[in-house]
């Protein structure tokens, strides 16, 4: 159900929308009065956070909002959520919106978990009866037990965030806005959140995610909006959007020549693109390279991390080929790593990739962090990074 049905109704329309922020350097009455009029102008600075944005989103889409820091992603999310008003144009939506941003910001420390749940749910548009009906789900999801009747100031930060997340997610939203919050909580809770998002996708909920973790965007979204200086510069295919962002980031970096890694893809043993693997299946990582002729000696390195940034394994052409530096007259080449039957436990993994130079030694000519992602999924419930085959015998001494 994740692919957009053509007959799915539109749920969000943003037309010719612009948003201006006014930065004031003074905030006291004295400075305002002293600097009234012309002098006052000097103390304010206008800038357009978003310019001429036009977006239409249909029900059931999962959309990633990407862009570098300050490109207007979070502002756009707040405009969609109705927390900010546009300066020009309009933002229209239908259905209930739940925003997972600044989790728990609305909790009052002196009230109990229960009181905060009812207040927050009411502010998100739930009636008392609806909250009553969902209260069990909320406490179960937050896994908070008897602490529900304790003042939230005594909660651990994890409990606080879990409860806030649980309320937002149990309001039966039609549109879910997510701002970098999938990084909260422990491993088990993160998994629960991702499961919940998958469940939402199946239920036709529209999900809009802001994240810097591009691999996460790639794993979840089928459409990407790339923002640059407040304008939508890409609206469509996820891979292309992420590539366009990489190009933007590289153009902004002091070393614009570093554009060597063009594409990184995860394939199965037969060379077909694949996102989910059974434990023990071969994994191929295919890296397209460009502009290599300019490099004297180089090798290609990959590293695979899990969702928490722990290194699962790493390798490179240098290690595999016994210390070989490549130097070619060709610009374009493809490096394919075959990882035979990696003993990975269940989880999501991210592929980082680098081109490393001989001169200057070990300098990175290009990096592609979290360039691709894949998942290992089985019916087992293992712990840790690696999958083991174990047995246990129990006998009386």
């Amino acid at each position, binding site marked *: 159900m994740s692919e957009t049905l053509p*007959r799915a109704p539109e749920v969000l329309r943003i037309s010719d929308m612009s948003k201006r922020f006014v930065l004031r350097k003074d905030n006291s009455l004295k400075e305002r009065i002293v600097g009234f009029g012309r002098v006052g102008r000097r103390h304010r600075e206008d800038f357009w956070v978003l310019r001429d944005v036009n977006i239409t989103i249909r029900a059931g889409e999962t959309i990633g909002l990407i862009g570098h820091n300050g490109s207007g992603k979070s502002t756009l999310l707040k405009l969609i959520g109705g927390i900010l008003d*546009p300066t020009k144009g*309009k933002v229209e939506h239908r259905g209930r919106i739940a925003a997972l941003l600044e989790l728990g*910001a*609305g909790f009052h420390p002196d009230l109990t978990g229960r009181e905060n749940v009812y207040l927050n749910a009411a502010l998100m548009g739930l009636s008392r009866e609806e909250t009553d009906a969902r209260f069990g789900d909320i406490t179960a999801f937050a896994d908070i037990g008897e602490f529900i009747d304790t003042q939230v100031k005594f909660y651990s930060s994890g409990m606080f965030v879990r409860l806030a997340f649980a309320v937002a997610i149990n309001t039966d939203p*039609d549109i879910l806005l997510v701002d970098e919050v999938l990084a909260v909580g422990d491993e088990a809770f993160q998994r629960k959140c991702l499961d919940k998002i998958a469940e939402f996708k199946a239920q*036709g909920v529209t999900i809009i995610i802001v994240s810097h973790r591009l691999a996460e965007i790639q794993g979840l979204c089928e459409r990407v909006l790339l923002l640059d200086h407040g304008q939508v510069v890409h609206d469509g295919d996820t891979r292309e959007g992420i590539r366009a962002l990489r190009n933007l980031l590289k153009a902004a970096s002091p070393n614009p020549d570093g554009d060597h890694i063009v594409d990184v893809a995860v394939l199965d043993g037969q060379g077909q693109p694949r996102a989910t693997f059974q434990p023990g299946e071969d994994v191929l990582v295919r890296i397209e390279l460009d502009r290599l002729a300019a490099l004297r000696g180089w090798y290609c390195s990959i590293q695979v991390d899990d969702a928490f940034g722990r290194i699962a394994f790493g390798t490179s052409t240098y290690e595999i080929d016994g210390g070989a530096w490549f130097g070619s007259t060709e610009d374009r080449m493809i490096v394919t790593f075959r990882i035979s039957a990696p003993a990975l436990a269940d989880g999501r993994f991210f592929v980082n990739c680098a081109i490393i130079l001989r001169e200057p030694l070990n300098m990175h000519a290009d990096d592609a962090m979290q360039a691709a992602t894949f998942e290992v999924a089985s019916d087992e419930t293992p712990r840790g990074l690696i999958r083991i085959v174990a047995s246990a015998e129990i006998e009386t001494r």
Partner: protein
Amino acid sequence: MDAEARFAALAAQPFLGRRNGGPTETSIGAIGQITAVFRNRQALALLIRRDLKARYKDSTLGFLWTLARPLTQLAIYVLVIGHFLGAARNIPDFAIYVYTGIAAFTLFSDIVSGGTGSIIANAGLVKKVAVPRELYPLASVGGAFFNYGVQLVILILATLAFGAFPMSWDILYAIPGILIIGLYGTALALLLSAITVFLRDISYLVEVILMVLMWLSPVLYSWSMVRDVLTPLNGGPVLIEIYTNNPLTLGVLALQKAFWVAGAQTAEYPEHLLLRIGIALIIGLTLLFFGHWVFRRIQGNFAQEL
């Protein structure tokens, strides 16, 4: 709910939009916002309860502390102003008189000072949840009215103790009295809560002005004392009019007429009290609409200023 059902339900819903200055569906923004507030009345009730609960949550005596301040004020004023300075000589049942005024003024000051800080106090919610922001100052208004209700109960009990229970039709003056204080308070709460977000100094200014206002209304002395002092002055009649037509003065006078039975025969009230209140109510309504208009115009930028 499966995707098909959700899509069908969504397709049947109208779009709700926002543009600069508020929602797009209504051409008259004020009415749109008022209906939105009405839709969120359960949330409003919970916000009021939150404020009341949270205030004294950790104290043993809890809610009783709300009464500590006005009762202490009452004791001091009766002793110092009433007896040491002699104001009680011309005002029978001085304690009832003062308490009526203090309660009325406390209502006004709770609404205005609570309302002024309400958006900043709820910054977390303002930045996160898209509900009409009017809820936050209105929650302060609701909380203030609840406190006033408690004080009214005490006032009634006190009149019983003094054997001066308000049994005449004058009790009906309480309605316009409370109305005028609530109306002006709410108008100022809306206006100032919005402006304070951009100019934090306002909250300090409000404290000062409230103190002045308390002494400029006949809470601790009688209206006739002011009249007697002002009359011989140059331009006295104008000053008396200005003093009298202060909405807070009118509200306090109406409430005194309602609850302070001992003054029914002796005390003097300005002429045409009801007419004055009626005119002030109309002006107050205009002020309320103005306050709300300002609020609506700048509330779209709250989240980025907090």
